[in-house]
């Protein structure tokens, strides 16, 4: 039910996306058959990390994005290959943005059942140039899947226009999932949101060390002078090396 609501929300916030995938399917017949033939013969390679990736430059051809979107609709594609397709789609549209396909991309996120594929598609939104990317990310901060919320929180921080969602990120600092808090804090630091200072300071007591470290780094970025006035004695003796290291970094950059 919640998934349905999210999907509907996405569709509502993006009228362009409503029939975007249908539009893509309608384009199937007009795809360059030679290109399709090439793409169909390419097998993804195994990255050093173990997941698959299409490293063949053919996947950067403009027509390849439509094909990868269509492939993502198929039922008989293995999950690891769907992940590679999502990655290829993101890299294609990053290099050559296509607004109409971005709408389909977001609709794919909304209907995607595989959390790993969904994460790849969400993280790719950092490169989306269309008008609906921010609203989609804002909606995704409410997604029932924590990994998707974390991906959205992270992605907002990478966007040059991400500050438009600072308020939503500040709300995400109270998320029940540590990775969401961590990445929301990081993004607020990247975006330099001075209004987040108190909320970030509160995270210095967070139970998650990654969140504490991210909060320290963010505090330094949003207001280094004010951060220098904080009592960080507990952080200097924190049990986690990353927190101690972030404290040292803050000490070293204080005015």
């Amino acid at each position, binding site marked *: 039910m919640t998934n349905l609501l999210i999907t509907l929300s996405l569709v509502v916030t993006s009228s362009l996306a409503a029939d975007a995938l249908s539009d893509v399917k309608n384009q199937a017949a007009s795809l360059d058959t030679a290109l399709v033939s090439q793409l169909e013969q390419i097998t993804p390679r195994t990255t*050093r990390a173990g997941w698959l990736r299409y490293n063949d430059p053919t996947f950067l051809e403009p027509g390849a994005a439509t094909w990868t979107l269509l492939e993502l609709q198929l039922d008989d594609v293995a999950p690891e290959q769907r992940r590679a397709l999502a990655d290829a789609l993101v890299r294609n549209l990053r290099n050559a943005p296509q607004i109409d396909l971005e709408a389909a991309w977001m609709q794919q996120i909304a209907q995607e059942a595989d959390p790993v594929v969904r*994460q*790849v598609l969400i993280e790719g939104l950092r490169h989306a140039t269309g008008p609906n990317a921010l609203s989609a990310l804002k909606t995704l901060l409410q997604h029932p899947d924590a990994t998707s919320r974390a991906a959205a929180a992270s992605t907002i921080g990478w966007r040059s226009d991400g500050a438009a969602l600072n308020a939503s990120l500040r709300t995400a600092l109270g998320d029940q999932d540590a990775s969401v808090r961590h990445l929301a804090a990081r993004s607020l630091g990247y975006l330099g949101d001075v209004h987040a200072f108190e909320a970030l300071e509160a995270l210095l007591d967070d139970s998650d060390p990654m969140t504490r470290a991210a909060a320290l*780094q963010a505090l330094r970025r949003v207001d280094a002078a004010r951060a220098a006035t904080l009592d960080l004695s507990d952080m200097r003796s924190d049990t986690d090396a990353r927190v101690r290291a972030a404290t040292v970094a803050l000490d070293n950059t204080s005015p």
Partner: protein
Amino acid sequence: MQKLVATTLGLLFAHSAFADDLSLDVSDVLAGETLTVTVSGAAASETIYFTRGFTAGTGACPDILGGDCMSVTPTRLLVTSTADSDGVATASLTVPSAVPDGVTVYFQAVAARGADSAFSDVEMRVTGEVSTTGGPTTTTTGGPTTTGPSGLVVPETVYGTANRDDDDSDGTFDWLDVIADNDQAAFTINPDAAGATRGVAYHRLTLDDASGKTAIWVNGASERLLTPGSSGGSSASECVYDFSDYGSESCDTAWDEFGIDCATLESTYSWDCTGCVCPGDGGSSGGSGGGSGGAEPASSVTLPFSTDAIDLGAEFSDWRVTSALIVEELDASGATLSEQTIRLVSAPLILNHHLQEASFVVATELSGGWAGDNSEFTTPIADALGSSYGGVPGASYGSDVWIQDEFEFATSNAPGIYQDFIIDSIRDRGLDPWAENAVFGPDFGMGVWGSGWASSFDSFGNLEASPPVTVDGVEYPFGRVYWGENGSDGPTVALQSFLEAQEIQAPFNINTSWLAVGHVDEFVSFIPDASSAKGFKMVWSDIDMAYEILDGMSGSTSIPRYGSGHGYSTVAALRGDSALRSYNEDIRDVYLAPIKAVLFEKLGLTEADVINIPGMFEEAYGPYGAALVPGMANLVVVDLPGEPSRIFTADPFMRSSASASTATDPFATAFVDAMPAEHEVIFVDDWNDYHLLLGEVHCGTNVIRNQPNAWWADEAALSLLGE
């Protein structure tokens, strides 16, 4: 068997066929004194190459020998000399005063005439031994001996190594199988010449070995001693693969516990019983039989007294075994007249590091087909290394290009014994069978530690050894082993435990949790530096240096590789991504700074020991990073004997045209400028088949290296081992 690699390695290991037309004479090898080598039988004015190695066997095969190979290994060129009009060439050099006594050295001379090259016989000398007959002719362990009150002379300690290679190429370990290539530590007991007058009627030899991992061979293979209850050749430790997670430790234990034989396990359960004895298969499936000693072994043997020396061999099934052989003189009634104890010690397994000479480099070759073609990666390596490079056919190994990750090369040596060793990761991707197919064999052992599910931390780009270091006064003459982990996960515990038990390289870990791949080789490496007091430098990916270079470049500079590969088509776009800069600062502050502190602490380093090179990271998946600029710290050092030292690393392509010289690339020139002058830097195009797949040059190569120094003759090493 894979043709290309098999051929190449076959060349490497095959015994060369040649005429012994040179006569070589070698003086005694005494520390600090002059060593003289003389050859006769050469042609007038001919150049003679004098070489040495630490064991006899197929060594280097330089092109000038036209396909033939030296017969000492690792082959090291000592000196050259020109033959006089009588065909005699002589050379002298000073033996370093630091050379320890008791090291067996093999010498050979060659007149390089292509396929008709003339070789001498191999001459062996033991350092510190003064020879009256031109040098010993049999391998001994050297070292001190003790003479008991009776006049019986025995060595105090015998050092050997785990007999885990496959000299008879039967696909099983040699432990209790064959005795070849000096895999047993040979030693001698010299009876008391006056024993008969003292009433000595027998010598009794008793093996004291609670571990069951030692065998003693008496007078060749005529008698064999094993501790009762020991493996007798059926030890699970011989099996290559551990199936504990599937119900039993190995195929052999599965027979003991469940009565399932190897044939069934392999056919029905897809187990691999390589190395196992397979008692349920009538000894025919995988096993080594039970040795060639004939009767069932006992822990003790009694020999009629003779003044003839008793020749013995100590063989081990494992590393770091300590056992003893008790030697007694008995009278006619069996009463003990005297007793002495010989300590039997097996070697540690020592991982190779970048300061050791290279002998052979391998990389996976993709030659068309669905996986494409990686010749832009392999060609420059092959061109530079010639016959010291071998390609692994990717089509036969699942196009798995990550050959660094599947295997770790090591050495397992003892006086007169030299075995290379390959540790096979439980990663088990496409390259997994290569070790068995192309490497495991004579003088090349193999082993697997752990089993079951593998994480990226189990890959061996995540397992490295530093050069020799001294830390707080403690010398680590073979460096220290390090690996990456994330606090809760790391390399399989079985391997960690094994490496820790070796003690000699005192492992430690660093945090690589922030990386998508998670390997230590992604940001740090070590290179030789002759100008450094320590003899090396640590190469470090420096984020600030990368941004300094970028900030000094024209923003309009197009960087097409980064445009298609990473979404940054100009320098301005790359350096202007504030989130990327913040991300890299986070990595620098939160991860790299503490990691460097750990490396400094564990390796006794300071900033003076570091060479910074430009490095940048991007998010690869989730918050986890990977190299954005091809990771140049992910390099490989190839220091072939008699050739210039080479460093192969990734071409950074921070320039407008990929085909333009790297001399126009500020990242490449920064790297070259930072390297010690002794190295030739070779940039490799790894962009498409490695970099975009989250790896670089080190990940795509692996190196067999020559034997390090003799641990048994190194006080610091012995101290680490508790000897």
